Each structure stands twice: as structure tokens, then as C-alpha cells.
């Protein structure tokens, strides 16, 4: 497996042009996501979904206008991948998480499993879709379409460890310039998903951008969950046995 590739999305330089959203759809042939005026600042896309793989959030605060381009986090421990019963979701040689559309049977399990609410099922074609980190482009040695289109390098693509270094430097800069509200998100391998392959520099708390403050991959608790299920099963067996032989 080649080195892990990822995204560092530096929202402090995002100008909200949405070129990433459009470039993604152009390259991946993602259909439009409906024409809804949401009256939520300049965001009429709403959230990531089966037909929106990059989503630019707009947050108006009294003295600033935050913009941030969200994307699949390509988690180190990816719940979607863990729970997928068909193996449609798989981990690529770039350590990214991708759905094989020809394998997915639309069981929909990955949808509620994702702690970031990224992947979703298209009702019309019944399959689950999400960012592939432009697997096909990477195979061709190209950077992902969204990163390519981003005019301000808010989306930076590259080997994850390089990106992490860059992010630390950027964060230090911002803090030095008094932007103490700046923070990294998803960069910590110790977090609930073992760190994100696509991490961010945010200018406010994650939930302000619609991101979970402390996401966990629930399969982490799988052994204990099976344990409880087993105990319950035994209880059933015991009780049933009693219904048969007991009380006679």
C-alpha cells in the first residue's frame, strides 16, 4: 500500500466560491441535488449527501462570515466500511474509503453508521454514494478535482503526514496573529475514529459547522455489544427452558 493520501481543508482561507462542489460534480458525474432556496446564508446545498460530496458551509456571525468546505473524512477507523455487509465499501491503496457502486446492494447500513453523516443512499438508484477522494484521478496521478479547482488552496491534497506538518505551521501562524479561535479538527489519531484522512482547520467549534465535536466509530464497542447480546440470548434460553421444565 502506497503512503496515506489525504486532505487538509484550511477553512481560514476559504472564500466560499463553491468551485469544489461544482468541480466534484463535473468530474464524478454527480447529479444535481435539487433547487431549494434555504435562506441559510449563501448555503443552498444544506449538507453532504448522496449527491453532494463537497459541501460549503456558510456561517454568519456578528463580525465574521465563516466558510468551510466539508467532505468525507476517510476515517482511520471508518464505521461505514466496518458495517458494510457486502464489502462494497473498501479501503484503497491510498488508505481512503471508497464505495464500489457495482457491489453495493443499498442495504443502507452505512448511512446511520457514519458518525459525520456523510454517506447517503440515493432513493432513485438505491445505492450509497460519497466522496471517493477521486480514486480514479489518484490512480492516474492527478490530484482530486475539488483540490484542483480550489483557487485559494483552502483544499490541500497530499501525503497525510506532510499535510499534518503544514497544518501545525498554519495553526501556529494564526495563533501568533491572535487568531486564537483557530483549531485543528480530525487531525488527532487518538480521537474516536483514530483520526481523519481528511482533516480541517476551523475558526469556531466543530458543531458550528455541523460537525460532531467528539465522533466515535461505534464498531469500537462491538465486542461488548455482542457480549450483551449473548447474555440476553442465554437469558432467553434459560427462561424458555424454565417455561418447559420448570414449574412442574
Amino acid at each position, binding site marked *: 500500500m502506497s503512503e496515506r493520501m489525504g486532505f487538509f481543508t484550511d477553512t481560514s482561507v476559504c472564500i466560499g466560491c463553491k468551485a469544489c462542489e461544482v468541480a466534484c460534480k463535473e468530474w464524478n458525474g454527480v447529479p444535481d441535488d435539487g433547487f431549494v432556496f434555504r435562506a441559510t446564508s449563501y448555503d443552498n446545498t444544506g449538507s453532504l449527501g448522496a449527491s453532494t460530496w463537497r459541501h460549503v458551509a456558510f456561517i454568519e456571525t456578528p463580525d465574521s462570515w465563516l466558510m468551510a468546505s466539508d467532505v468525507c473524512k476517510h476515517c482511520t477507523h471508518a464505521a461505514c466500511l466496518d458495517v458494510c455487509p457486502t464489502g462494497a465499501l473498501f479501503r484503497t491503496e491510498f488508505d481512503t474509503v471508497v464505495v464500489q457502486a457495482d457491489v453495493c446492494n443499498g442495504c443502507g447500513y452505512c448511512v446511520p453508521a457514519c458518525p459525520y453523516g456523510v454517506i447517503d443512499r440515493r432513493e432513485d438508484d438505491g445505492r450509497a454514494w460519497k466522496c471517493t477522494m477521486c480514486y480514479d484521478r489518484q490512480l492516474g496521478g492527478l490530484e482530486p478535482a475539488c483540490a484542483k479547482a480550489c483557487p485559494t488552496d483552502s483544499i490541500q491534497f497530499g501525503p497525510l503526514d506532510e499535510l499534518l506538518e503544514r497544518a501545525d505551521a498554519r495553526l501556529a501562524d494564526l495563533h501568533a496573529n491572535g487568531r486564537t479561535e483557530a483549531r485543528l479538527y480530525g487531525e488527532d489519531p487518538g480521537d474516536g475514529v483514530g483520526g481523519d484522512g481528511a482533516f480541517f482547520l476551523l475558526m469556531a467549534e466543530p*458543531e458550528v459547522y455541523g460537525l460532531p465535536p467528539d465522533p466515535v466509530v461505534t464498531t469500537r464497542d462491538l465486542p461488548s455489544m455482542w457480549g450483551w447480546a449473548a447474555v440476553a440470548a442465554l437469558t432467553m434460553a434459560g427462561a424458555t427452558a424454565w417455561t418447559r421444565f420448570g414449574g412442574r
Partner: protein
Amino acid sequence: MARERAMVPEAEFSSYYGRPVIKAPIWHEPHMPLYLYLGGVSGACALSAALEELQPRPHGRLGTLARLGAALGAVLGTGFLIAELGRPERFLNMMRVFKPTSPMSMGSWLLAAQGGLSTMAAASAVTGVLPGAGRAAALSLGVTGPLMATYTAVLIADTAVPAWHEARHELPFLFGGSAMAGAGALGMLATLARPEEAAPVRRMAVFGAALETAAGAVMERRLGLVAEPYRREPLMRAARLLAVGGGALAALSALPSRRGGGRVLGPALAAAAAAALTAGALCTRFGVLRAGRASAEDPAYTIIPQRQRLTAAGRGTEGGSAQ
């Protein structure tokens, strides 16, 4: 972006225009809840079918009924499961992999086993061919059955849906209990004419109702904020009443027959109990699905507990909570 929430006073929190953080389960009604219900019934029936084989004089009518129940439950359940898939024609892709990290994968294999064994057992019971094989199958149902009834709890608990994942300890008991209540109820209906045979199924029904009720009570106490969706879900309240009521009626239905007389009252009570418990078992499955959805659609249930977790761990980020 900031949103005051009257109902949870302590929880003034930020969200993105009140939008959900995670995606709610897309599973449809009635497919999904019916699958859960039928799986449960099949599981409990399977269990009694297996135990039947340990009886001094097996191949009783009850045993056959149990085998049939297990088989029907499994087959119908599979039907609903397939119907739920976005690409039903690809159901068999479930069999591409054997994936321990995916409760649905494990469940699929379990369902396959349960389906196969129960159909075999039922077939031989009805036709009388290959009694030996039928017996073996029935016995092995003793293993698959209870798992069939409880794995679905793991299935839904292994998601980011707060009301499900947080309830991962209680849900197996809730489902197991409700499975026994449901199966017991069906058994009671099948034995209306022969009260003397009804004891085992009645006991199963009563115990199931009790277990379900207890599990539900514990769960709602332990979950705190995340219990709200359950408390607010009418079907969950109905399920609780029906379980308690049905359980009580089932218990009562024993008394007349004991004293010999009351050839009418007993069956009437039993029928009422069975109806109540069946309805209860169904309400539980629909209720749990709806409560789960509700907890996913309101960012409060995702954000507040995670925030509290961070603050507790002293990892809370700087800056006030509300924007």
C-alpha cells in the same frame, strides 16, 4: 445558528442551522420493524422447538407449531429484509463476504442458517420424512434462535444513532423479551382449544413481557437526555402498556383453567393477552425505529452528549458554547 432549547434547559448549544449532524436511518416502515419482529418470533419459536426435542416425549403438536413458527418467521422476515434493500436483486451480495465487524453481515449468515434449519425442521415435521435430520435441525435452532432474536439489537446499536448506540446494553434484552412475548402470544393463540397444553407458551409470554418491560425501564433511566426520543414516542408508550397489560392478562388466563371450570373465560383472556402482546411486540419495533430516527434528526442528541463527554474529559475546546 445558536438555538435555545426549552426542553433541555442546560443545553444551550451550537449547531448548523439546527440541521442534523448525522444521517437518520433510511430504513422504511413497515419493512424494517416487521423484519425485527418476525426475526424475534422466529428466534423464540426456534428456541422452544429445540427445547421440545429435549422433552421426554418429543414430536408433540407444540413442537411442530414451534418449528413452523420459526420457519415462517425466518422466511417472511427475509422477504421484508430483501424488500428493504435499495437493490433487492443484489440480496445475495450479502453472501459475498463473512464480516465480523458488520452485524448485518453476521446477521445475514445467521438468518441464512436460521432459515435453512427451520425450514428443514418444519418440513420434516409436517411431511414426516427424514425425522432424524429434522430433529438435528431443530436442536441446532436452539443456538441460532436466541441469537436471531437479539442480534438485531447489535445491528441497530452499532450505528451513530444516539438513541440506539447509547442503549446498546438494554436493547438486546428489550428485543429478546419482546421476541418471547410475541412468540408466546402466538403460541397461546395456537393452544386456545387445548388450555392444558398452554402452560409453556403462556409462561414464555409472561416472562417475555416482564423482561421487555424491565429492560425498557432500565434503559430510559440510564440514558438521560438521549432517552427523550423514547419517552416522547407514542408507540413506545403503547408498547409498554400493552406488554404490562398483555403479560397480566396472560397470567390471569391461567387461573380459570386451573380451577377446571371457566372453559370460556380462560380462552377469552388468553386471546386478549395474545392480541395485546403481539401488538406490543410490533409497537416496540416500530417505536424503536422511530425513536432512533428522532434522535438522529435532532442535533441536540448528537452534540450535547459529545460536548459533555469532552468537557468531562477536559478536552472541551476554547470559546463559549453558543455562537
